[in-house]
């Protein structure tokens, strides 16, 4: 048994050599306790939720950018039929005028058959539109941003072809933007909410750990450790937990997003997906999306570090 060894043994100590691995690289506060694992799990879950919300926001932002880009770079001239005028001549004149404007790149008069087709869903399929004097459309594609010459063009057009009107899709843009902004806002709000939740969870967990380690902290103080030393030990622990949780949650989110993308791409044959595709594009969040997810995970770890540092400092202040 471990009755004390005789003094001769002590003199032999040099020859015996020292046992290897004396000090494991253990921090001074317990690391992988069950409470620590609980915190990692909660952080992972919160990171997962935050990442998914962020991903949804990015997805919507990207899709709405596409719409906005497409819609903002396009204008249409609508030529109304008028029994006293020749509509084909009016269309030709408007096309000609548009081609003369510097900031307009491409001009295409939509053939009557095509524009009839556009109206079909609204007027009913069976209607014979050939007989109907529907307005004709001319699609203009802009080069770069809308220039000042467009305003002049608008006036000219109104003067020369009174039945034509230039439409810059403001109404559509606004509707789409409201929709997209709401989704993005909800996503960002969720991210903020979840990050707050994570910060709270970490703060409470740090408090819990500190209360549980109250004795250890007192011992550390009494063997001569100063506050900075103790705070470092706690903080390094919580940053580690935060990184673990954030990493796991972020990874899970990336996998989930990738899976969802794969699913929707397989499912896109179904007619129901049309609507979603219109809203969310091809359900691809791209590199920027993955970067945002990673960013969220990193922010969670950073929050873990900051919050635990603050909590530990505060608590050490209370103790002394």
């Amino acid at each position, binding site marked *: 048994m*471990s*009755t*004390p*060894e005789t003094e001769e*043994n*002590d003199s032999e*100590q040099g020859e015996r050599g*020292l*046992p290897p691995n*004396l*000090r*494991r690289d*253990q921090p*001074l*506060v*317990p*690391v992988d306790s069950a409470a620590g694992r609980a915190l990692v799990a909660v952080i992972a879950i919160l990171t997962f939720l935050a990442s998914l919300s962020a991903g949804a926001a990015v997805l919507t932002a990207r899709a709405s950018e596409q719409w906005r880009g497409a819609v903002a770079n396009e204008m249409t001239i609508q030529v109304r039929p008028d029994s006293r005028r020749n509509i084909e001549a009016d269309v030709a004149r408007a096309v000609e005028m548009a081609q003369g404007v510097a900031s307009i790149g491409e001009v295409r008069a939509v053939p009557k058959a095509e524009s009839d087709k556009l109206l079909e869903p609204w007027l009913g399929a069976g209607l014979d539109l050939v007989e109907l004097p529907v307005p004709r459309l001319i699609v203009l594609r802009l080069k770069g941003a809308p220039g000042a010459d467009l305003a002049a063009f608008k006036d000219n057009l109104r003067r020369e072809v009174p039945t034509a009107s230039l439409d810059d899709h403001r109404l559509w843009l606004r509707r789409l933007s409201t929709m997209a902004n709401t989704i993005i806002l909800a996503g960002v709000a969720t991210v903020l909410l979840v990050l707050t939740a994570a910060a709270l969870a970490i703060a409470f967990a740090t408090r819990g750990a500190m209360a549980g380690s109250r*004795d*250890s902290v*007192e*011992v*550390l*103080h*009494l*063997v*001569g*450790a*100063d*506050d900075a*030393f103790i705070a470092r030990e706690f903080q390094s622990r919580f940053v580690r937990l935060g990184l673990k949780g954030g990493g796991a949650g972020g990874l899970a989110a990336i996998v989930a997003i990738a899976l969802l993308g794969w699913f929707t791409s397989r499912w896109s044959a179904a007619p129901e997906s049309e609507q979603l595709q219109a809203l969310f594009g091809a359900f691809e969040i791209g590199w920027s999306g993955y970067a945002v997810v990673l960013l969220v995970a990193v922010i969670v770890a950073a929050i873990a570090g900051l919050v635990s540092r603050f909590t530990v400092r505060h608590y050490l202040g209370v103790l*002394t």
Partner: protein
Amino acid sequence: MVRFENVGLRYGMGPEVLKDINFSIAPRSFQYLTGPSGAGKTTLIRLILMALKPTRGLVNLFGQDVSRLDPATLTAFRRRMGVVFQDFRLLDHLTVYENVALPLRVLGKEEASYRAEVVELLRWVGLGERMHAVPTVLSGGEKQRAAIARALIGRPELLLADEPTGNVDPNLGRRLLRLFMELQQLGTAVVIATHDLALMELYDAPRLVLADGHLHVDA
């Protein structure tokens, strides 16, 4: 080195546990602190450690009034003291070796520089075979010896040992007492709080006796 002047202490709203305590501890001195259970021995040691503030009176440590110490000096003073707690207070998630090395580790020393020393001390107190164990699997006496080793490893100027032989057999108690005496010869002031009459008879030294909150010295 330690001087108490009219020190009184009460916990919260309770009765005064210590009343009008006057004494001083000289460098390189050796004394026992004794008194019935609940007399305030541990409380007195906690006062010296600055883990408690006196409710009245003056505590003077290493020549300074402790009521106006800044945190840095407080830490520096604590590093000059070693303490064996009555309830050991080992860190359960660290091995015995790590627990004993703790006072050196918080000084920021390299592990290589103290390794041999720690192992030697552990062997001396009979924990050579148990140094990789965590405190939770140790026997009562083994924990006590680890706590003693932790207090000694930093070669403190002042050693406070609270009931350091309550869980070891008389043989081992003698051996540990010898260790404290050696330390004193190397220049440490030693205070041993104990109930153990046999121990106090083994080596005669002044006794600080606490009773009813008052302290008198039995030389």
